[in-house]
């Protein structure tokens, strides 16, 4: 069989032709979107949520431009475990609250650098209160607390954050934005608070 050498224009035409065939075949369209049903149901806020577990792999690289020989973390890859959960509770016709819990644990395997093997565990708890119109979007306030432990879990850091959030709903898409302020142990405010709370 002769091998055809395709020029860029020919290749483009082939790709467009195949995309059109796939669209006609419904490959990209998926199951029908029951928009009318969803528009009816989305008018009312729902009590519910989800829980999930996951596992995977994390790749980490640290560069120390000032002194490359003192990297504490170096290049690592490590096992990652995850738990996530959320629960939403309507408070009024267009007002609801949501609680979030997220936990992750990473078991590091040192491949480089001069530091010890490491673990990182993070736990997050958060809450939201929001006003929502299921047809158009959502506006609300949220806050969270995150706790992280590193270096064989001996070092701990805590952060808190508050912010505003908004969602805009489109037919098949959602745009979601959050912005706010965070205070952490890595930020002096919390360090100062802990020093003041500690006995002399």
């Amino acid at each position: 069989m002769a091998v055809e050498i395709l020029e860029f224009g020919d290749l483009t035409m082939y790709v467009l032709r195949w995309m059109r065939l796939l669209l006609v075949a419904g490959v990209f369209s998926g199951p029908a979107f029951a928009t009318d049903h969803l528009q009816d149901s989305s008018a009312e806020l729902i009590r519910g949520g989800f829980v999930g577990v996951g596992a995977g792999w994390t790749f980490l690289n640290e560069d120390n431009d000032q002194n490359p020989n003192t990297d504490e973390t170096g290049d690592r890859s490590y096992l990652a475990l995850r738990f996530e959960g959320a629960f939403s509770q309507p408070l009024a016709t267009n007002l609801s609250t949501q609680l979030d819990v997220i936990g992750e644990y990473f078991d590091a395997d040192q491949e480089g650098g001069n530091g010890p093997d490491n673990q990182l565990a993070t736990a997050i708890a958060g809450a939201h209160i929001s006003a929502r119109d299921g047809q158009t979007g959502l506006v609300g306030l949220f806050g969270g607390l995150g706790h992280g432990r590193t270096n064989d879990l001996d070092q701990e850091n805590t952060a808190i954050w508050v912010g505003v959030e908004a969602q805009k709903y489109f037919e098949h898409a959602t745009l979601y934005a959050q912005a706010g302020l965070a205070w952490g142990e890595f930020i002096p405010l919390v360090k100062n608070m802990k020093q003041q709370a500690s006995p002399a």
Partner: protein
Amino acid sequence: MGGVHSSSEEYEAAGFARLVGRYFVDEEFRLQAEASALFTDDAIDTQPSNGGDDVESFGWGLRADKRLGNSKFYGFAKYDGLYIDTTTEQKTLVEHALKVGLSTHFGAATLFQQDRSGATLDQPEMIARTTGWIEPLD
């Protein structure tokens, strides 16, 4: 951005922002992409003699959730990236995390209905991840 003052240092809160886009291929198949950023002053070596190091952190991610057949379970796959720059400390850290998992949902009939009427909100996880890694970077 407002600051909290003490007798020895000026403490400022870290500003953060996060943008998420979700696309529903169908009612039970959700694709998500996100980007986030956090900036803080004097986050490391905060004693006046050290001058303090600013920290910049950027996060990005992709996630797909899909119902597994007609079961009550959803499979998900997610990728999270994180970049932390300690600026004057001259240390950077890059993290790439790949995870797969299972979840089960209650209340809403579909992922799409959950998005519009149920537990649709989440947290900017990069803040906690930055917090966790900042101590080894000092």
